[in-house]
């Protein structure tokens, strides 16, 4: 077959159809835009991570621990100094900061650094030379948000424990820090040599220690870590190299890309559905032309080639528009996600992402357009002599191998795209199957509606309503395509909101469930009573004073913890390493707290005596991670004293209540003589009163930190607000995707509706009656499509919340309802907009057309 004539005819014949075809193909533009933006953003971010990995870590190796280095570890590190290895430390812990001038306090994150920190990367400050002056004396560099909280300024004095520091500047950026974290705990950098005199790190205080390592050229990171690993591992000290940092970050970015890609891929496939529906309408218009071409000597393959070429070119234009949009969109993504990223992302057009987006977009457009296009092969030249209905004119053999092949191509393409974008092939297949199921369900719902409409309509109904309902099942109806487009849009948006609601619900701190609104912690054993008295003296109520004892697991059922952690025997139920190695902060009491519910066994009530082991109750999730069973014995290392216990119950804890909650609760007799701290809850009314009390407490007890619930809620709200913005962006994108697809689906049958509407006018219908008929049709379509989409979204949101986020799920009907109403309104608006010619055309048009 000669190509040139086909090309020439394809170009010339497309003249009046280009705009329409482009409209149909624009359905994939947004999908391509999403993919290009997401891939470009991920590639740019990964490139930035690679470029900045060393600066992110701050050294060649990072060594971290939650407790002071053992002498063995310290000696091992010291031995490396002789080989030219340099070390710089940062100790991080939480503490109250008191602004002397204003008297205001705030819980902050103290970072005490030694000279030389960090070895790589630059901590930017205002003024710019402030970092170089940090080690000059008792000075501090703080987050700007801290100055706001304390109503302080550069030059003011900050009290940290028993020591005072002058604020010499603010932090602009710290490599590797996610800026949203400063909303939770603003940072204060001080010289490490003054930590001891602050007296903040006492018994039970939680602190993180990081030692940065700078290696000489003669020693590689691999050699360094290889030499130290046996010593560090046995002490529970972790090491991380630049390569590992890079790997961890790029892995996290890959996961983010995979998640965002799901949205992009769904957008693309939804666009494909829009293309199919639009091209279907296009095909109907071309039956006459094809019949003429066949008369004039065109073979079926020449005809197919002409229109496939048109579809490919328009698909390329649609994809190109999408690629340009994507490049622009990727400029916005770093700003949307800036506060969650640990690197400065240098944005530049990514040619791989653009080409991939283009190719995928053209392929999807072609594959979905092929389905209606192949029917053109069946158009007989006889149609020039005797024109039959469109459906009959396009009808082919009952079993058409090419149609089957095209259907298979669509299925394989969806599966291949899903696998290519997912983390694991099975996940991709699952995703593709899920999309297929959603499409099938929506199609089924549409078919059900058509069938039900036919049965339900009654002669006694008003004419307008009957006509509107009849539109749902008449030949050439748009029910399936509109319900699919609409339902999918609702499904996407509603899923996003439902998942968001359920995730955010788990971090929603509840005040009304607790009588307290201020918590004091790091209260030493001998400070409990005095603090209690101070609070009461100011006229407030101490709601609760809870003892807390830090400890670690020494053994379970007689097997030492170190052996359990190192046990890789298959078939054994694994005890999670993090749970075995962590420091537990436990309490002791013989009654259940209001935030707890026993799920197995019996909660201890005291009264047991030696030699019976003291009872403990374990949080059910931790019990699962530790692979515990009722009756197991656990020996705890409590400040080098071994305390054996027996597990007698599991509890479900409501962690969102503003109360001290514990993974493990001991029977009182086990720990009441152990060194402990307190957590004290108070009920204080009024913002000024809270600030005053916090100031008085930190003045008298500099090591005691405090938090008021309002601040927690505000902080959490600020962080969640940023998450919500990102989610709203995705929901908005989903809405933007649904509209062109819906437009394409609705406008595809515009000609038929125009003809019908004008004929009705010939027969005496008023414009108002015609308008009401169309309104009835679109309302019904909108309601059904939205309902089907909402139902599907509950299922998908459950699956995502349960399997991906591992959280409990409750349907959030309010956002689903809002989404449904919005989409119904959009469907009706688009339907009426595309049908406005019905009102404008005179009845003469129908006669002329006949």
């Amino acid at each position: 077959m000669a190509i040139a004539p086909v090309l020439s005819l394809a170009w010339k014949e497309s003249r009046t159809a280009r705009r329409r075809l482009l409209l149909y193909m624009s359905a994939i533009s947004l999908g391509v835009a999403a993919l290009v933006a997401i891939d470009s953003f991920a590639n740019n971010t990964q490139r930035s991570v690679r470029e900045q990995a060393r600066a992110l870590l701050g050294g060649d190796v990072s060594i971290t621990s939650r407790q002071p280095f053992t002498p063995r570890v310290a000696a091992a590190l010291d031995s490396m100094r002789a080989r030219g290895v340099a070390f710089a430390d940062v100790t991080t812990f939480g503490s109250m900061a008191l602004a002397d001038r204003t008297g205001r306090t705030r819980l902050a994150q103290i970072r005490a650094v030694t000279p030389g920190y960090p070895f790589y990367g630059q901590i930017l400050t205002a003024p710019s030379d402030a970092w170089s002056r940090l080690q000059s004396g008792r000075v501090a560099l703080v987050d700007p948000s801290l100055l706001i909280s304390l109503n302080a300024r550069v030059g003011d004095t900050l009290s940290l424990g028993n020591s005072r520091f002058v604020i010499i500047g603010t932090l602009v950026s710290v490599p590797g820090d996610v800026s949203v974290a400063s909303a939770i705990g603003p940072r204060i950098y001080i010289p490490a040599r003054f930590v001891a005199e602050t007296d903040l790190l006492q018994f039970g205080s939680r602190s993180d220690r990081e030692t940065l390592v700078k290696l000489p050229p003669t020693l590689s990171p691999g050699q360094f870590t290889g030499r130290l690993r046996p010593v560090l591992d046995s002490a529970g000290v972790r090491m991380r190299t630049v390569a590992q940092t890079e790997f961890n970050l790029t892995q996290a970015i890959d996961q983010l890309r995979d998640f965002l890609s799901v949205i992009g891929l769904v957008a693309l496939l939804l666009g494909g559905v829009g293309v199919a529906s639009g091209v279907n309408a296009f095909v109907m218009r071309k039956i006459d032309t094809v019949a003429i071409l066949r008369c004039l000597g065109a073979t079926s393959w020449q005809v197919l080639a002409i229109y496939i070429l048109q579809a490919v070119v328009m698909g390329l234009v649609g994809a190109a528009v999408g690629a340009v949009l994507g490049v622009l969109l990727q400029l916005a993504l770093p700003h949307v996600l800036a506060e969650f990223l640990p690197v400065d992302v240098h944005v530049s057009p990514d040619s791989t992402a653009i080409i991939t987006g283009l190719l995928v977009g053209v392929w999807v457009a072609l594959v979905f357009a092929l389905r209606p296009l192949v029917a053109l092969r069946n158009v007989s030249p006889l149609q020039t002599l005797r024109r039959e209905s469109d459906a009959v004119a396009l009808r082919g053999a009952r079993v058409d191998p090419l149609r089957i092949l095209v259907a298979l191509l669509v299925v394989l393409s969806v599966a291949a795209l899903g696998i290519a974008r997912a983390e694991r092939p099975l996940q991709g297949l699952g995703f593709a199957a899920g999309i297929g199921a959603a499409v099938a369900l929506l199609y089924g719902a549409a078919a059900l509606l058509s069938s039900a409409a036919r049965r339900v309509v009654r002669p006694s109904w008003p004419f307008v309503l009957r006509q509107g309902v009849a539109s749902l099942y008449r030949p050439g109806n748009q029910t399936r395509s509109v319900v699919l487009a609409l339902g999918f849009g609702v499904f996407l948006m509603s899923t996003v909101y439902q998942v968001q609601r359920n995730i955010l619900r788990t971090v929603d701190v509840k005040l009304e469930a607790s009588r307290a609104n201020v918590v004091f912690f790091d209260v030493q054993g001998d400070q409990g009573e005095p603090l209690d008295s101070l609070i009461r003296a100011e006229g407030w109520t101490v709601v609760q004073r809870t003892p807390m004892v830090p400890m670690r697991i020494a053994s379970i059922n007689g097997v030492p913890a170190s052996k359990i952690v190192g046990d890789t025997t298959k078939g054994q139920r694994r005890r999670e390493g993090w749970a075995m190695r962590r420091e537990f902060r436990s309490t002791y009491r013989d009654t259940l707290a209001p935030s707890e519910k026993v799920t197995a066994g019996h909660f201890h009530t005291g009264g047991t005596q030696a030699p019976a082991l003291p009872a403990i109750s374990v949080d059910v999730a931790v019990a699962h991670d530790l692979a515990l069973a009722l009756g197991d014995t656990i020996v705890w290392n409590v400040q080098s004293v071994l305390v054996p216990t027996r597990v007698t119950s599991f509890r479900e804890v409501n962690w969102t209540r503003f109360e001290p909650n514990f993974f493990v609760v001991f029977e009182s007799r086990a720990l009441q003589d152990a060194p402990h701290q307190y957590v004290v809850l108070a009920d204080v009314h009024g913002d000024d009163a809270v600030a005053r009390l916090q100031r008085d407490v930190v003045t008298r007890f500099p090591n005691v930190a405090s938090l008021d619930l309002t601040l927690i809620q505000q902080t959490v709200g600020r962080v969640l607000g940023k998450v919500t913005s990102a989610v709203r962006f995705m929901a908005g994108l989903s809405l933007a995707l649904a509209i062109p697809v819906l437009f394409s689906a609705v406008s595809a049958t515009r000609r038929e509706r125009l003809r019908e509407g004008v004929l009705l006018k010939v027969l005496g219908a008023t414009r108002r009656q015609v308008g009401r008929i169309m309104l009835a049709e679109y309302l019904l379509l909108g309601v059904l499509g939205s309902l089907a989409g909402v139902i599907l979204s509950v299922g998908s949101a459950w699956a995502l919340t349960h399997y991906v986020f591992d959280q409990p799920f409750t349907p959030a009907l309010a956002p689903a309802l809002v989404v449904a109403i919005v989409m119904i309104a959009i469907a009706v608006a688009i339907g009426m907009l595309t049908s406005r010619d019905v009102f404008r055309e005179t009845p003469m048009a129908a006669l002329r057309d006949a």
Partner: protein
Amino acid sequence: MLEAVRLTKEYQSGEQRLAVLHDVSFAVPDGAFVAIVGPSGSGKTTLLGLLAGLDVPTSGTVTLDGTDLARLSEDKRARLRGAKVGFVFQSFQLIPTLTALENVQVPLELRGDDGAPARARELLARVGLADRAHHFPNQLSGGEQQRVAIARAFSNAPSLLFADEPTGNLDSDTGHHIVELLETLNRESGTTIVLVTHDLALAGRAQRVIRLADGAVVSDSLAPAPSAE
């Protein structure tokens, strides 16, 4: 030569089998001008479709220059049409998205003929539309559209031209000119013309008239002016 032998065409209509044509036989020599007449529903259009290879008979044969059309695949029939057959339709059947010149070029382009534009211009001039070459069908009158269709029908120098009610949508004067054009081209190029019409006056201009009624040939005369109904 075009020859139809015992042509029959039946359609399934619900439970019934409808015979639209039964046992039609005739031969058309090269260069002839033949009219097929009959009232509405007589099977004229069905016969035309079979003779032109647009459809296949239920039984019987149609041979064009010795080739049995029913034995060819749809695409082979298309190629044969492109090489040997021209069409003129009642509703002109121009491709609306192509200009007059481009419409005339289509059969030549489909064959990969490089001289298509020149030949098309020549034909348009022949039918008196050289100055309308770049107009679209909706910019032309009915008569002009039909002249473009005639130019297109002759573009591939067909040995056989089928005209289905070529004057049906035209006023009498215009229709008269169209038929004159067909006659002239028939004389000059020797193309066999098969004209289907219900217009007896138009049929009278042909050299031979085959009359159909109820799907069968009721008369086949080489003389003009058959008796009126």
